[in-house]
């Protein structure tokens, strides 16, 4: 099952990242994990939050441009070679990855990575067919 990721455009200016986080905090929206990609002048903040549509509304109300994109949360064995094997599977299926980042998990649990595929629907079908565990949003976000 796909997960809705919230993303927003942040100028490379002091205080802008904090203001975005405060806009979410003001509406009581918890951030489960995030990834900040940056270029010289700007960054793109990607967030997995408890309530993505509410998060998008909160950011827009604070003057940010925001978007929801489908990503997949893929379980990865927490051992040497775990991620390499997952990627061998996605390569084998001919799936394009735009970017990925790790989901925070407690020690001893399975690791989870958030992957933004070019074609999330095809990726979901291929990964499930090949026996990889794609984590349900409900299960992922209750922890």
């Amino acid at each position: 099952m796909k997960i809705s990721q919230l993303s927003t455009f942040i100028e490379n200016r002091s205080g802008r990242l904090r203001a975005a986080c405060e806009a979410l905090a003001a509406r009581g929206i918890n951030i489960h994990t995030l990834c900040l990609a940056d270029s010289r002048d700007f960054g793109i903040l990607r967030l997995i939050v408890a309530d993505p549509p509410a998060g998008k509304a909160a950011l827009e109300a604070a003057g940010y441009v925001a978007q929801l994109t489908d990503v997949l949360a893929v379980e990865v064995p927490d051992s040497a070679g775990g991620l390499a094997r997952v990627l061998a599977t996605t390569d084998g299926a001919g799936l394009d990855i735009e970017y990925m980042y790790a989901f925070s998990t407690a020690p001893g649990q399975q690791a989870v990575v958030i992957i933004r595929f070019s074609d999330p629907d095809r990726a979901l079908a291929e990964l499930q067919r090949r026996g990889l565990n794609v984590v349900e949003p409900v299960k992922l976000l209750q922890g």
Partner: protein
Amino acid sequence: MLRENWNDAGPGFHPVSSSDYLPAAQLRDLQLRRLKSIVGRAYAHVPLFRERMDARALTPASIESLADLGRLPFTVKVDLRDTYPFGLFASPMSEIVRLHASSGTTGKPIVVAYTQEDIQVWSSVMLRTFAAAGISRGDIVQNAFGYGLFTGGLGAHYGLEAIGATVVPVSGGNTDRQVMLLRDFRVNAICATPSYFLHLIERAAELGIDLRELPLRAGVFGAEPWTPAMRQRIEADAGIKAFDIYGLSEIIGPGVASECSAQNGLHVFEDHFYPEIIDPETGAVLPDGEEGELVLTTLSKRAMPMIRYRTRDITRLITVPCACGRTIRRMQRVGRRSDDMMIIHGINVFPSQIEAALLAVEGALPHYRIVLRREHGLDQMHVEIEVSPEFFSDRIGAMEALRGRIAHSIHSVTGLNVAVRLAEPHSLPRSEGKAKRVWDERQNSQ
């Protein structure tokens, strides 16, 4: 060419706009009579004009034909500042019923005056402006030009009342209320600066209101140069026909020229405002059809006659007959001003070129600004553009590609390599009147 039925006030034709259809010979005759009269009036009552004509050994009797106008000295904006506040008035204050003034962002404002007759002329040319845009009795028109010292608000207001339309005198600003009134009053037409109307379109979308679903069908836009691409965007996003109007306070305010349903050049109300095109460098009069600086002479203004006023606007006169049947000449829409020109690395650049380049890139909204800085002794142009939802992507590569496309587009239009910066929405300064596009910081930088 006279229309058969003068009482048929159909779209684009109104009995009072009959001056737009005068036979050419009759129009020239009228212009010459009025020119002789206005030069006589300026010579008699305005010391500056008299001194300048005396210095050239000219008298009002020197004007024997329209071509003789070219012998008279120019008037420029500095003349209005030098004679601040009332030095160019040709009427005593007892006959002046209205003063307007420019915002005065650079030094003293310029002050302009109107007698009761001038107000009537102004109303009549604005009436002709609205008639040309197909606005008539029964239409509800929201006037978002600023009311006050700026000529836009009251100029449009009097013309709208004269044509019998229902005016909503909302003035500029308070965009949420503008959107509400457009919807609730079922407004048919709006007057605004084009950049403010784009802002209004954007705000309406944020409020979940699609302007295309409202009865709004026409917009009368002026007070700043805008591009054909901007018009396309306004017409598509608001579902209206967008008419360009032209005017300036020094001459009368809005109402010097306006587009008709053909939307191909602006008809100059030349029975009141006589246009010439000159070479901005030499001052020589250019033949009709050639591009140059527009110079205007008020043929009937009483309180403040203006002889050969240099507008700094670059355009050309179109003499071929218009499809609408009007006989008065047209001027090409003003895309640039001779004093808007920026010189970067020896290349002449106009803000309108940057705008056209931005609009050529899919999805780029024209909320931008140009900042000129001097870096390491070299002039550098920075173009800052707000990121809008339609071209935001979560992929950094897509955003960098967008920036690259914008830079490439600007380069292909201007030949310049500019620094493009993407900015957050609503982070760039906005104006609710005339848009300020260029910030020249070269004096403050090293």
